[in-house]
């Protein structure tokens, strides 16, 4: 059985009349790069804040490193092992880059001075630059430096590339993969950029309206998910019921398009049994999986 770094069970959280999390079950394996996807307001940031102890769940359980996040005393140990990039990238406006690094360093016994220097150079951060004078992109880079240099076992990154230019996004993604590969750091990051997640994540979770609707290894998902395109003969009709595994069916004229999440061989066999039908199977992208599930949910 794979060790889990993050595990939530039936997690719920409401804000006044709005239910942000509705029984969220999240499992993040150790050493994985977990892409956490969802529309705006789906519950991504609420989940992250709950894991960080910034929000208190209404019911259910949440554990990080096997420690309950609701236990305020033990949650300090969790935070000692986490590098965190917040969604809004806000830091102390009265400090310089050098001062905030010096401020953060002593809290983390495994602080990586080598990484600190490396990212100061790579991100071109001015040590004496005052934080309010930095652009949002530069603040994002500084926050990444502060998170990565903690020598953390888990990086929780809320929209880490938000505000970065394309070249910087490239650098950051490459570095995140290198860190995950070299130090066995688990990475849990939310993003709207499906292409980024597709490039670096090995596990994904899609959250919608506070519930996890798809989760698993990205390779498995891509291997299992297929789009079947069936071209019917003039007189033929598609069956009323498809085997288990069909997530959606769209028909335009004689062309029927099926998205299957599993059991694709049986589905294809049934399609081929339609007289005069031709069947083609296509791999699907993460974007297709995401859009299909979010729309149908």
């Amino acid at each position, binding site marked *: 059985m794979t060790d889990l770094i993050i595990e939530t069970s039936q997690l719920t959280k409401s804000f006044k009349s709005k239910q942000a999390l509705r029984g969220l079950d999240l499992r993040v394996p150790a050493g994985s790069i977990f892409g956490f996807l969802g529309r705006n307001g789906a519950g991504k940031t609420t989940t992250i804040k709950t894991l960080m102890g910034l929000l208190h769940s209404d019911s259910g359980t949440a554990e990080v490193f096997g420690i309950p996040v609701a236990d305020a005393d033990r949650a*300090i140990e969790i935070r000692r092992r986490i590098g965190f990039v*917040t969604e*809004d990238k806000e830091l*102390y406006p009265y400090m310089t880059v050098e001062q905030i690094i010096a*401020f953060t360093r002593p809290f983390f016994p495994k602080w990586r001075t080598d990484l600190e220097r490396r990212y100061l150079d790579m991100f071109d951060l001015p040590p004496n630059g005052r934080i309010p004078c930095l652009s949002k992109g530069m603040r994002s880079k500084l926050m990444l430096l502060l998170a990565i240099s903690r020598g953390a076992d888990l990086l929780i990154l809320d929209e880490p590339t938000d505000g970065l230019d394309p070249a910087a996004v490239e650098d950051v993604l490459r570095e995140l993969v290198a860190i995950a590969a070299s130090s066995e750091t688990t990475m849990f990051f939310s993003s709207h950029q499906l292409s980024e997640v597709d490039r670096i994540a090995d596990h994904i979770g899609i959250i919608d309206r506070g519930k996890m609707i798809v989760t698993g290894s990205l390779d498995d998902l891509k291997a299992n998910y297929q789009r079947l395109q069936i071209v019917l003969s003039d007189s033929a009709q598609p069956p009323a019921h498809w085997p288990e595994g069909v997530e959606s069916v769209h028909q335009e004229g004689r062309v029927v398009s099926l998205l299957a999440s599993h059991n694709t061989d049986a589905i294809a066999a049934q399609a081929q049994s339609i007289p005069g039908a031709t069947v083609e199977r296509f791999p699907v992208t993460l974007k297709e999986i995401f859009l299909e599930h979010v729309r149908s949910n």
Partner: protein
Amino acid sequence: MLWQKGWLETRFRLLFTLGLTAFVLSVQHSAHIASAPTPHATAAVLSARMHANEVILSAMTFANAISLIVVCAMLAGAGIATQPSFQAAKGVHGSSLFTLSLPVSRLRLLATRAAIGWLECVAEIALLCVGTWLVSPLLRQMATRTEMAEYAVTLVACVSTLYFLSVLLATFLDDQWRTWGTMIAAVAFYQISHHASLPASVDIIQAIGKNSPIIAHTVPWSAMVFSVVLAAALFFAALKVAQSREY
């Protein structure tokens, strides 16, 4: 490092309040020059002046108390594990999220920040007392150095209640409302003290006014202890609010 952060957050406020204190002292200095006795004053004039001096001294201690209230309101709270509520309602928490991601308990965050403000408050009180002693010949006539030192300790103890009330307000109000809340509470304390005939043992306002060591020539120990206990209760309440807050 939290101490350094707190210092960076409050240093300009401290500078402002030191300037305010210096201004109060300069006004007091001018008042003393204006009321200095002339060489040919009669006994009746001197007697009247003595009475006037007592009024001035009372007014002076009250002015000191008012400036300390302002000091408390200014020093407490900024960045005490909270953010402006109108921003928080929109989901904007500024740098609080970064602070709360550090491996530090909310108790330590609150205690450090509150201690910095309290120490700055003590520094203000020290400046105020030393400054008043230096600029006021009247004070030097009517009280001893020891009594002045006792007055400073009384101020620290009694102003602590107001300071920790401000800390409590800071855990759920934004800066503007916290300052007003502290001011209103101070006025409420004053009104209660003057209209409710409180026993001296719980009358914090009079402990730094007419019952203070420089006017009554005794140390109001019971009121000081009451104030310290109240301050501790207010800090405990602030801690409970800070621990239950969501961001």
